[in-house]
């Protein structure tokens, strides 16, 4: 009997040990390296990617082209006569002081529920919820009917008690909500940053017309605004509330895509940090091609490499892209390094600092996340920029 129990105990120990080895970041990296089907997954660059010269996607004959391309992008995303009225934003202040209102949403919980959990964070003054109407009473044809449609996104606005006068926008990507970044947000609040947190269109808490599938909403005119208008309006609201000294943006996965494109669109973003979520199209693998990111008018207005240049141009502006080399999901390997030099070269030709654009490879884990190492590098970069900077962005 005792032998049997000890054998079972050994099995339990092996199960526990196996899980620890599989999930602990350093051993997980080793497992992923050893089990990779091809060396091109993490270790070496597939020669097919070396056949393309990144400069063929970088067309900037002169400095004026920066403005031309930015305007073209803005037209594609926002339309010809965009309206950004911050009075339409429904603000619910200090949600953290209210009784939590919890009910299930897709992929987890929402701010109404989580705010009470965050209320004891060091240096937190309050958490506001911004309801941002992206589509308001628009008529579109759907299944032989004319439908009136609405879509409102909800954004979390985390305010510190003692502020350093700087704002950080954090954007989550697919398959998750921004509450997964709660440790990073907590740390930023502790450091005195204000934080605005965004979910991707269709994720987290949102309101939409009854009987209208999310997948059909991109049929509206200028569908890219579904991704970018909430960021633009929330930023307008924040700058209306306080003259922030700087606005930086961090995004993970598809949130990194939003970060890259939004930083190219809007020069109020000083530094942008897309993490594991954006490559020029020629470097993308099949699971790195979601339809909104390949929207033809967007790519006609500017290539992704050109967007990186746009995001890194202007006084004090820069972009640091972070890629997880052993990412189990996507945007892995050292591919980000293949175009870094070309973007730097074009920036120098345009009279900008080549150092405005950098690519950082994170080798500390094998996950699809903003790691402690990645965030430390981002914070170090922000602090360096803060020290170098003078004046306010408003």
């Amino acid at each position, binding site marked *: 009997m*005792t032998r049997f129990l000890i054998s079972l*105990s050994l*099995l339990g120990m*092996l199960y*526990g040990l196996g899980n*620890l080895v599989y999930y602990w970041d350093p051993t997980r990296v080793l497992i992923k390296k050893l089990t990779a089907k091809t060396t091109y997954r993490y270790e070496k660059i597939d020669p097919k990617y070396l056949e393309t010269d990144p400069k063929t996607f970088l067309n900037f004959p002169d400095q004026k082209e920066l403005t031309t391309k930015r305007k073209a992008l803005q037209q594609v995303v926002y339309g010809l006569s965009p309206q950004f009225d911050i009075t339409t934003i429904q603000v619910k202040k200090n949600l953290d002081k209210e009784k939590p209102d919890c009910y299930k949403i897709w992929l987890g919980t929402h701010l109404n529920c989580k705010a009470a959990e965050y209320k004891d964070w060091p240096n937190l003054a309050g958490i506001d919820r911004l309801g941002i109407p992206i589509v308001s009473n628009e008529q579109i044809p759907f299944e032989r009917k004319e439908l009136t449609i609405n879509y409102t996104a909800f954004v979390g606005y985390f305010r510190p008690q003692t502020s350093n006068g700087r704002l950080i926008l954090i954007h989550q990507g697919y398959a998750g909500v921004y509450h997964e970044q709660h440790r990073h947000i907590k740390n930023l609040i502790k450091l005195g940053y204000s934080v605005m947190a965004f979910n991707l269109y269709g994720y987290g808490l949102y309101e939409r017309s009854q009987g209208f599938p999310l997948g059909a909403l991109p049929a509206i005119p200028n569908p890219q605004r579904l991704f970018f208008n909430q960021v633009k309006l929330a930023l307008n609201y924040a700058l209306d509330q306080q003259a922030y000294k700087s606005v930086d943006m961090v995004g993970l996965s598809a949130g990194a895509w939003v970060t890259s494109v939004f930083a190219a669109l809007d020069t109020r973003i000083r530094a942008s940090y897309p993490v594991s979520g954006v490559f020029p199209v020629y470097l993308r693998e099949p699971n790195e091609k979601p339809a909104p990111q390949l929207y033809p008018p967007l790519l006609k207005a500017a290539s992704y490499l050109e967007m990186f240049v746009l995001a890194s141009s202007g006084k004090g502006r820069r972009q640091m892209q972070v890629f997880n080399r052993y990412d189990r999901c996507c945007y892995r390997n050292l591919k980000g390094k293949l175009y870094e030099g070309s973007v730097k070269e074009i920036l120098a030709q345009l009279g900008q600092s080549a150092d405005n654009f950098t690519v950082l490879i994170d080798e500390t884990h094998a996950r*699809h996340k903003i790691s402690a190492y990645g965030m430390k590098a981002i914070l170090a970069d922000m602090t360096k920029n803060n020290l170098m900077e003078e004046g306010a962005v408003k």
Partner: protein
Amino acid sequence: MKTILGRLYLALLILLLLLPPFFWWRGGMWNHGELPTHGMQNATAGAGVALLLYILAKWLRSKQN
């Protein structure tokens, strides 16, 4: 020899029980749809059950003696 092995095994189980929460606390095993929780819970549960079974086996043996 048996006692030394037993003590080493016990120490290993206790270490295994404590390591996942330590890594979780340090912030290395969490985030983005891959909350550490499932990995941590599995590792801790395995070590916890192993520890309980081992203690039970030792107790039964001491009763038999």
